[in-house]
């Protein structure tokens, strides 16, 4: 079986959870080979983690271009590595940047592109990718018919399991293209950590919407989230009203999440929101309005006032965990 190139997503010197999932998934398709770009002094530790999760080889490239310019330096590096390694497929995490890198790489290599896969399985003619489309009302399976398949995979598409492999590091010196310096990243402000799990990675997400009725109302949502060790999400209505940061928005134009458990509080369930959470495994909703469309999706729905229900639930969860 061929090499499966995995672009390793990292931030703040640490490998991110979706990269571990990609390495786990890559093992189904071939021999995982991790690509670690612009990690500086953290590269060795990230490469070691990639090895623990099945990377036989780890291509490491470091240069200031990766931080100083947008997207293209990473495309240059991947294209150069892919040309030398002739992989059977390239996997990238489905983030805004990941999809842009994957798209330019695919075009440059003359390869077909599939984005936002929720599953990838080996097939007779290369990987078969499943996507969840039209606000998760359809599942589409696709293959790439030309070139080396480039596939972006959503976080939480699969679990992550360690499977130690050689993790042999190969240093790569990238010859950057003229286009690499096209868009300068003048400054970068890492997102302040809330101390809670990442929204897209979390096993449990607790969200608030219009029914939370103000920025102060999110405290009951946050308290439940903390009791469950969950991430906090918000509907577009709540974000547009300025009650919660946009980085926490769940929906078509925010984050698309697929946790084991999603608890929607005071969220009616507009199509915009459903598109971002409908693939969650278990869905719970708390809403005053028994007619709210969110109740069509739920495994468990509670018609009631979230300001009464959530504190009681939080106290009970804490008591049971104690």
């Amino acid at each position, binding site marked *: 079986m061929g090499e499966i190139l995995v672009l390793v997503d990292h*931030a*703040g010197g640490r490998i*991110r959870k979706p990269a571990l999932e990609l390495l786990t998934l890559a093992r189904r398709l071939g021999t995982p080979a991790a690509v670690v770009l612009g990690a500086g002094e953290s590269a060795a530790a990230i490469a070691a983690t990639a090895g623990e999760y099945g990377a036989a080889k780890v291509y490491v490239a470091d240069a200031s271009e990766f931080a100083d310019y947008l997207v*293209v330096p990473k495309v240059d590096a991947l294209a150069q590595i892919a040309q030398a390694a002739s992989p059977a497929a390239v996997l990238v995490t489905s*983030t*805004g*940047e990941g*999809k*842009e890198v994957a*798209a*330019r790489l*695919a*075009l440059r290599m*003359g390869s*077909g*592109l599939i984005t936002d896969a929720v599953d990838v399985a080996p097939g007779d003619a290369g990987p*078969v990718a499943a996507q*969840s*489309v039209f606000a*998760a*009302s*359809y*599942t589409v*399976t*696709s*293959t*790439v018919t*030309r*070139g080396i398949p480039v596939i972006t995979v959503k976080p939480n598409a699969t679990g992550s399991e360690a499977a130690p492999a050689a993790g042999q590091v190969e240093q790569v010196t990238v010859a950057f293209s003229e*286009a690499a310096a*096209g*868009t*300068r*990243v*003048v*400054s970068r*402000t*890492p*997102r302040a950590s809330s101390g809670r799990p990442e929204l*897209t990675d979390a096993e449990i997400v607790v969200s608030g919407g219009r029914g939370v009725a103000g920025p102060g109302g999110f405290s009951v949502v946050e308290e439940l989230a903390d009791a469950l060790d969950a991430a906090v999400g918000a509907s577009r209505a709540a974000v547009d009203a300025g009650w919660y940061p946009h*980085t926490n928005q769940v929906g*078509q*134009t925010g984050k698309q999440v697929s946790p084991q458990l999603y608890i929607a509080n005071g969220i009616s369930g507009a*199509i915009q929101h459903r*598109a971002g959470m409908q693939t969650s495994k*278990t869905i*719970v909703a708390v809403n005053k309005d028994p007619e709210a469309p969110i109740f*069509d999706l*739920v*495994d*468990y*729905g509670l*018609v*009631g006032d979230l300001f*009464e*229900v959530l504190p009681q*639930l939080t106290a*009970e*969860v804490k008591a*049971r965990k104690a």
Partner: protein
Amino acid sequence: MTLRIVVCVKYVPVATGDRRFADDKTTDRESVDGLLSELDEYAVEQALRIAEASGDAAVTALTVAPDDAQDALRKALSMGVDQAVHVNDDDIHGTDAIGTSLILAKAIEQTGFDLVVCGMASTDGTMGVLPALLAERLGVPQATLLSEIAIEGDTVTGRRDGDAATEQLRAVLPAVVSVTDRSGEPRYPTFKGIMAAKKKKMRSLDLDDLGLDAAEVGLSGAWTKVEAVATRPPRTVGTIVKDEGEGGRQLATFLAEQKFV
């Protein structure tokens, strides 16, 4: 020098409608009502604001789609765009994103451009890769997923709210940009705008006009293949309980049964 702005727009099936696939596994664009993608309204809005700020600009709305997509162009024209280009050819049916970027790039080159403005993604395909593909094809910088954008002289700057960080970007024109739904609320067409739109020029182009061969695009020219489409099995109807004072504790019991607590 007139600032030449091309804004790419897409005509998409209404999200609240019964979106589905046709027999050839392409998106059904005929039996479902369509409209200008909501996310492209933000692109039109930013193109117009940039044009207004520059004082000397021409904004062209561009789409690649069947006949009905004239509605989307008409909407853009009524918002204030100066002219429209509609690439329409039966052989385009079934084209994938990479093929669509080829058609758009040819049409943009033919129109002439200093700045290409796109929405962050379409509301049907939701890939969000077209702006990057256009930058790659046109050989110009991409400044994408911007929530704030400004043009000063020959430079575009903007704020990109990324997954892990917020970035300030800078690129020299010509360039391709995409804007998010945080970039500023799109204007509504005024009555005057709607009337004026009727007199604006809408140019129609086919593949020949763009020097493209039918084999490069369409379903057969796609580099990906949809093997199957299936409706997601409806979720089994869950338990709905009315809170009578014990709702929180009952919910905790449910969560415990499901092993979440």
